[in-house]
């Protein structure tokens, strides 16, 4: 859409948006780039030469690329059809399962991945069941190597496609489809030429997030890789071994690859003509005719969601199983509530939960405000530096969480107004700030996709009828943006709620989050209690999705329907 601003109000937005991005996103990255190019106090390319000439580094780069592209493809194959099933058709149980389908975006940190091991690992529930069923002497498969990483990625990252495409489908103008069909186009043709192009911004956004998340993904290759080299692990290993320069070079390469993908997608996106023109949205769910069809669709959608939630169920099972007893059996032999009891007996039990809620709320509120401003600017086709803005807003996603945290810790370790550095290390604020930075891409992409689909004529109609700019924003634009904005904010909120990799580097006495508490339990070998904490986190996330999912569904129904 094209809603131009007058130059002065444009500047009011441009300055803070660019200022924040340059200061919080670009500056720490340049810091890293600069340090990767300096050795013994002089400029050098030696570290890069060492990287390029190492076969194991090249192998890591190749693997990372392959895994990321594969994850995008697989996630789209799961997420897009699921969005269609749940947001184009109506059947019993649709609403609740539509909300639950978003759940896997956040497996509780640490224990979530372990749930995969208990499900699909060599001694997992599914693996052992199959082994017994087929009468094999060896486990039929084990969760290891590149296929395992792709499996875990697809399992968790399809949610980006699912949520973004769902939001787009809610805003889809049904009259376009009807027009196309009534003009004699076939269903396939209508899908390819009408529906799909309208979904492009959402798909591009989801593809980007999936690609970048996979590039920076840590837990999956760490736990299931079985020695496969990928860039994110190389960074971690180099750092552990005290080889800081190489870690910096690897970080720069990883960022460059993500940026390259971004630029390619932007080129592609720029060629598309997918803006929805029409009289606002009249999204409609197609009630399915015929009992068989209704039942079929319900079974298909619901069983897919249940399958995708299997790791969550496994975690619940672990949280009720008695530590140390589940060894050779398919299912835990003894059950207990003691794991939850141990949590409740701790008088500091609520502290991490309140901390995480507080920080996630702060960060998400900031994210939403920022995304509305940035999203607005991003659709100004005439705005110079639009591409740069887009790249900057996505940059945080290209960086592994550890790197974001380390950058913050380095840049904001002293107060120096001349260098635009403020002392934040050791304070409460650094963690919400890290969450904010890491979630910028998520919310901005979601809001931007919402803006792209918006019909600008609604705004102009309101203005010509005497509404002020602000009134139109409040009563016309924001309500129409709500599905997209809420999808993005919801994701950001739950991501912040369970964030681990940055938190562990910079949390303080006053900002100890849930993920760090789970780690504390694991460090004591309180495996069941760690799982119980994970289950509590899942319940909180499910509550968020159900609550907001419902608000959304009711809100966007146009009056009169």
């Amino acid at each position, binding site marked *: 859409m094209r809603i131009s601003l007058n130059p002065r109000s444009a500047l009011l937005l441009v300055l803070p948006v660019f200022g924040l991005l340059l200061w919080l996103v670009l500056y720490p990255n340049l810091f890293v780039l600069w340090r990767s190019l300096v050795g013994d106090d002089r400029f050098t390319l030696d570290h890069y030469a060492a990287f390029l000439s190492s076969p194991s580094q090249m192998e890591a780069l190749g693997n990372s690329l392959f895994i990321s592209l594969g994850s995008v493809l697989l996630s789209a194959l799961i997420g897009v059809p699921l969005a269609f099933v749940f947001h184009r058709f109506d059947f019993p149980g649709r609403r609740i399962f539509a909300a639950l389908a978003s759940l896997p975006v956040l497996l509780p940190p640490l224990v979530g991945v372990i749930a995969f091991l208990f499900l699909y690992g060599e001694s997992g529930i599914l693996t052992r069941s199959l082994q017994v069923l087929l009468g094999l002497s060896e486990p039929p498969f084990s969760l290891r190597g590149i296929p395992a990483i792709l499996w875990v990625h697809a399992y968790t990252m399809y949610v980006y496609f699912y949520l973004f495409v769902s939001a787009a489908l809610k805003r889809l103008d049904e009259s376009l489809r009807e027009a196309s069909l009534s003009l004699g186009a076939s269903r396939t043709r209508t899908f390819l030429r009408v529906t799909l192009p309208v979904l492009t911004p959402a798909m591009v956004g989801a593809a980007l997030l999936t690609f970048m998340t996979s590039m920076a993904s840590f837990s999956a290759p760490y736990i299931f890789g079985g*020695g496969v080299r990928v860039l994110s692990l190389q960074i971690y290993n180099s750092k552990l*071994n005290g080889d800081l320069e190489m870690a910096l070079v690897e970080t720069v390469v990883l960022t460059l690859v993500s940026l390259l993908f971004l630029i390619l997608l932007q080129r592609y996106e720029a060629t598309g003509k997918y803006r929805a023109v029409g009289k606002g949205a009249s999204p409609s769910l197609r009630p399915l005719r015929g009992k068989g069809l209704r039942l079929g669709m319900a079974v298909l959608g619901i069983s897919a969601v249940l399958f995708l939630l299997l790791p969550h169920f496994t975690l619940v099972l672990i949280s009720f199983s008695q530590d140390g007893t589940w060894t050779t059996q398919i299912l835990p032999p003894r059950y207990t509530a003691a794991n939850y009891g141990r949590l409740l007996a701790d008088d500091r039990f609520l502290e991490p939960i309140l901390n995480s809620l507080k920080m996630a709320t702060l960060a998400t509120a900031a994210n939403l405000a920022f995304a509305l401003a940035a999203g607005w600017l991003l659709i100004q086709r005439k705005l110079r530096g639009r591409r740069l803005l887009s790249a900057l807003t996505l940059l945080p996603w290209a960086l592994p969480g550890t790197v974001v945290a380390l950058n913050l810790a380095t840049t904001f370790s002293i107060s120096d107004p001349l260098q635009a550095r403020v002392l934040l290390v050791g304070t409460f604020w650094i963690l919400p700030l890290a969450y904010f930075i890491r979630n910028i891409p998520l919310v901005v992409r979601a809001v931007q996709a919402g803006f792209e689909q918006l019909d600008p004529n609604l705004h102009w109609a309101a203005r010509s009828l005497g509404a002020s700019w602000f009134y139109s924003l409040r009563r016309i634009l924001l309500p129409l943006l709500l599905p997209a904005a809420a999808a993005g904010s919801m994701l950001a909120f739950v991501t912040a709620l369970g964030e681990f990799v940055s938190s562990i580097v910079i949390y303080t006495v006053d900002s100890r989050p849930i993920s760090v508490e789970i780690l*504390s339990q694991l460090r004591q070998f309180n495996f069941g209690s760690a799982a119980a904490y994970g289950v509590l986190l899942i319940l909180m996330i499910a509550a968020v999705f159900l609550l907001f999912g419902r608000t959304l569904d009711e809100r966007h129904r146009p009056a009169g329907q």
Partner: protein
Amino acid sequence: MARPLPAIAIAAILLLAACSPAEDGRVSLVVYSPHGKELLSDHESRFEARYPRVDVKWLDMGSQDVLDRLRSEKNNPQADIWWGAPSDLFEQAGEEALLLPYRPTWAEAVPAEARGSGDFWYGTYKTPEVIAYNSALLKPEEAPAEWDDLLDPKWKRKIILRDPLASGTMRTIFCAMILREMEKTGSPEGGYRWLRGLDANTKDYVPNLTILSQKLARREGWVTLWNMPDIELQRARYDYPLAYVLPAGGVPVVMDGIALVARSEPRPAAREFYEFVTSGPSLVRAAREFFRIPARNDISPSELPSWIGQTPIPVMPLDRDLLRQRSREWMRYWDEHIRHKGDSGPAAAPSGGMGR
């Protein structure tokens, strides 16, 4: 029409109000430590009972994380005490001026290897690194008795190890093996050969202790390398089928310590805490309740639990200086040239498939 945005704002404000910390006029003392919630809260409450004007706050994290943190907080130190890390991390921190020298009252009661250079740290607990096995699968006499027994082909695909890059225990054992061979030949080659043999029998390297203990209990592996106190703890608390062997030829012992963090103004409460947690009664309590072996040798064995008092530990002598200088190089070599190069690693396992 529901309006979620104002609701969120109100919730946020309420939350902020509810969570603002209460000031009660106590001096707060911040401890960074890997010793775990239970040991830490126990010492916290006993210390606060004795010194009511001090409010002890601790953060529970790995010892490498503590070092990283002290580095990044150098200009705004948050911690007063660093309680728990292998000696070489303390030595490193001392060199980087992150610590304050302090000579505890019991300094003479610990052996020389528990006294940090420049008084920057002192030893608290001893951690012997041992061979561990699933006791439901192996009888004590069937388990590998010496380090070299691990290379026997009968353990092929039966050993599961923690990733040595991320684990202090594993690093110490690997480097100890290289040092042992170096004494004979003067070069690390013999040690590399030994590690290659171990890699050939190793089924998998896992990222953390939790996964290791689960995999061992669930019989994905039979044998591993671990430390003695952790196995005692797992056995006593959760009935895990785990047991260990102390190779008679000697075991590497990691010395765990305590140090004061460098701050612009050292706090008296920090010294009180240092002395309190390393006092005789505290060490005995740590041994009984939390399976820690005290470094001080002025504690009567009769006060300690039997697994400590009655087990003589054959200490393997280690050249600590050499270890500190070369361990990085050795581990990098291992990562690039030895990891998964043995023929039974996951890469060659049929299920590894496209793993490589």
